[in-house]
């Protein structure tokens, strides 16, 4: 199994929400309810689902932004050449982990500190990890700006985020993310707030960089079309659980789980001639059955295609 870059087993994240204004009684919201997946080096996995299904929570738990409730996450420590758990990690390994995992956020307007220049923003990870001397850092920054297509870099170094456009900002975000050459990057809908014409260039950039720098992505999106463009494999998430996971084309051609089908059927097609098949499913019923079978296992139906096994046919409503 050590050919994986990251292994997630039964990741669970619960939130306590105080439900009453006066009493302070707390309710538990199971945002992520036991999900497992692996990512191999160079691979990108799409995590697809509706808003509120736990995609972002998964991402935040993975990169230690929020502590997970239970489950294990192992990552490949390139210096020790072995898989290491992120729990009880020692400081050195944590540093390596920090260096190798990064995240790109959705909103290009909020993800850069408005008070810092582009140079400072990109330099921050280098400063934190104390990589290279000052001149080297400078050099690295110029290089990475060029890599993400912000040329000439000198034009950007001393500018503030509000002085550049949304697409450029997202490029800066990518530059900041990649400046330490991480092995694994979590992308939380990085293009959903960009315009169509710019979106593709950012996605292309990310794809190219993945090849060039040998980066793996966990790509979070609700748009299967985007996921298809970006990912090798897609995991479909529903109410905190992964219900189906397969190679991209396999999943799109041969969806098994009703939720996957519903999801695919709702993607509009840029072709006025084409009339979509529409599915409607009983979300409440599906929700119930997912909740009632917390220990449901995924089964492999071949082609590296895993599906949650609960009996779901009855919740499918043909339309």
């Amino acid at each position, binding site marked *: 199994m050590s050919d994986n870059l990251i292994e997630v087993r039964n990741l669970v994240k619960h939130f306590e929400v105080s*439900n*009453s*204004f*006066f009493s302070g009684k707390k309710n538990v919201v199971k945002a992520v309810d036991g999900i497992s997946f692996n990512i191999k080096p160079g691979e990108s996995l799409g995590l697809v689902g509706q808003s509120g299904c736990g995609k972002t929570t998964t991402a935040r738990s993975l990169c230690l932004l929020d502590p997970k409730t239970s489950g294990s996450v192992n990552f490949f420590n390139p210096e020790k050449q072995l898989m290491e758990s992120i729990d009880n990690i020692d400081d050195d390994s944590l540093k390596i982990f920090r260096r190798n995992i990064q995240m790109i956020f959705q909103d290009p307007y909020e993800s850069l500190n408005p008070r810092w220049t582009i140079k400072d923003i990109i330099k921050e990870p280098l400063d934190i990890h104390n990589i290279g001397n000052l001149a080297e850092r400078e050099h690295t920054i110029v290089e990475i700006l060029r890599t993400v297509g912000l040329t000439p870099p000198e034009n950007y170094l001393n500018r503030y985020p509000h002085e550049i456009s949304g697409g450029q900002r997202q490029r800066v975000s990518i530059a900041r993310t990649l400046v330490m050459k991480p092995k694994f990057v979590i992308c939380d809908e990085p293009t959903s707030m960009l315009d169509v014409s710019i979106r593709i260039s950012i996605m292309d950039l990310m794809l190219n960089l993945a090849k060039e720098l040998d980066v793996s992505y966990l790509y979070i999106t609700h748009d299967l079309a985007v996921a298809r463009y970006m990912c090798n494999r897609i995991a479909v998430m529903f109410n905190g659980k992964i219900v189906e996971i397969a190679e991209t084309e396999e999943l799109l051609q041969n969806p098994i789980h009703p939720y996957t089908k519903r999801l695919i059927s709702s993607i509009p097609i840029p072709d006025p001639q084409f009339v979509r098949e529409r599915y409607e499913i009983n979300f409440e019923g599906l929700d119930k059955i997912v909740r009632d079978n917390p220990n449901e296992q995924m089964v492999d139906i071949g082609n590296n295609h895993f599906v949650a096994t609960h009996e779901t046919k009855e919740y499918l409503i043909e339309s």
Partner: protein
Amino acid sequence: MVVVFFLFLIISYLLFDAIPGNAFQNLLLNPSLPPYAYEETIALYGLDQPLSVRLQKYIVNFFKGDLGYSYIQFPKTAIELIGERLPRTLMLFSVVNILAFYTGFFVGKVLAWRRGSKSETWITITSVFSYTVFYPWFALLMLWFFGLKMGWVPIGKFLTPNKWYDSPFDSDEVFLEMIKYMVIFSLIYFVISILTKEIESLTQRRNIRLGSFFGLIVISNFYWNTGVLSDMRFYAGDIAYHTILPVLTVTVVAFAGTALLTRTTMMEVLKDDYILTARAKGLSQKRIRDRHAARTALLPVVTSFIFTIVTIIDGSVLTETIFSWPGMGQLILDSVLREDIPVAMATFSFIGVFALIAHFLADVSYAFLDPRIRIKSQG
């Protein structure tokens, strides 16, 4: 909260204790008084004991409900003194605050609505200066101008002595009766407003409300003509006459805070999409302003207003002094300056409790006004 209050008590006591001198220092200034008289006096009041002992005793007694006797006005208790002063302060400042709130809210509303116009700029500047005006100076000028120069209003005090020579009532009774009346009146009007909420036609709704308001005024006329109130009416009128200038002065200063806050929140609200929706719906400007923008902007304004109510008593010190209106503010000032620790402590803890209640009220009113919180609280 109890812990906070407890700490509040301790801190206040320590502060009072740290003031140089004590309540009986004046005795030292009588050159023919033998020093033992002073020593005996402070010993009797326990002031010679170490601070820790006194503090402990005070706290224990406090939680037993015994706030102690006034040093200066011995043997009146601190609670008696507050009970005597409170209605007057309540009367004056409830009127001021309601008035200041409504004018402030209205002015703020108009300011935000007329954003960018010349009048907006000028009214804003005026409001800012009336907000920051050097209050005692301003109050004295008002007193001089309206009281002396124009002679429209009485100078100071809350009554005209010669009208009260034979009054069968204490002024406090009259104050209480007036407060009672105002509360009843507004409650009834409030209930009417709620009941008429369901009337679909807007003009009809307005007419009914207006009608019932005048109806209430007619009824109040009867009310003040019944039984003992018909005698009291005259005295209540005298007090009301004396409230005009202080109310006017404080309102001029106090409305601006609300106006400026309303202006800010309302400007924020005006950026919200539902204002656009409301315009798209074809609603009239006034209705959008009042029903949509102002209604939503009301939330933070009310909350902050409730917090400022706490400062009523606090801020009333100057007003009450200049307008010779002996209420809580003067009690605080006197007791602090003359180091009448039990009374000062009592007024401070009264304000503290009042602040706690206001915090609570602010939460409740926020929940009442903001359904987003209200539903949560029921759930």
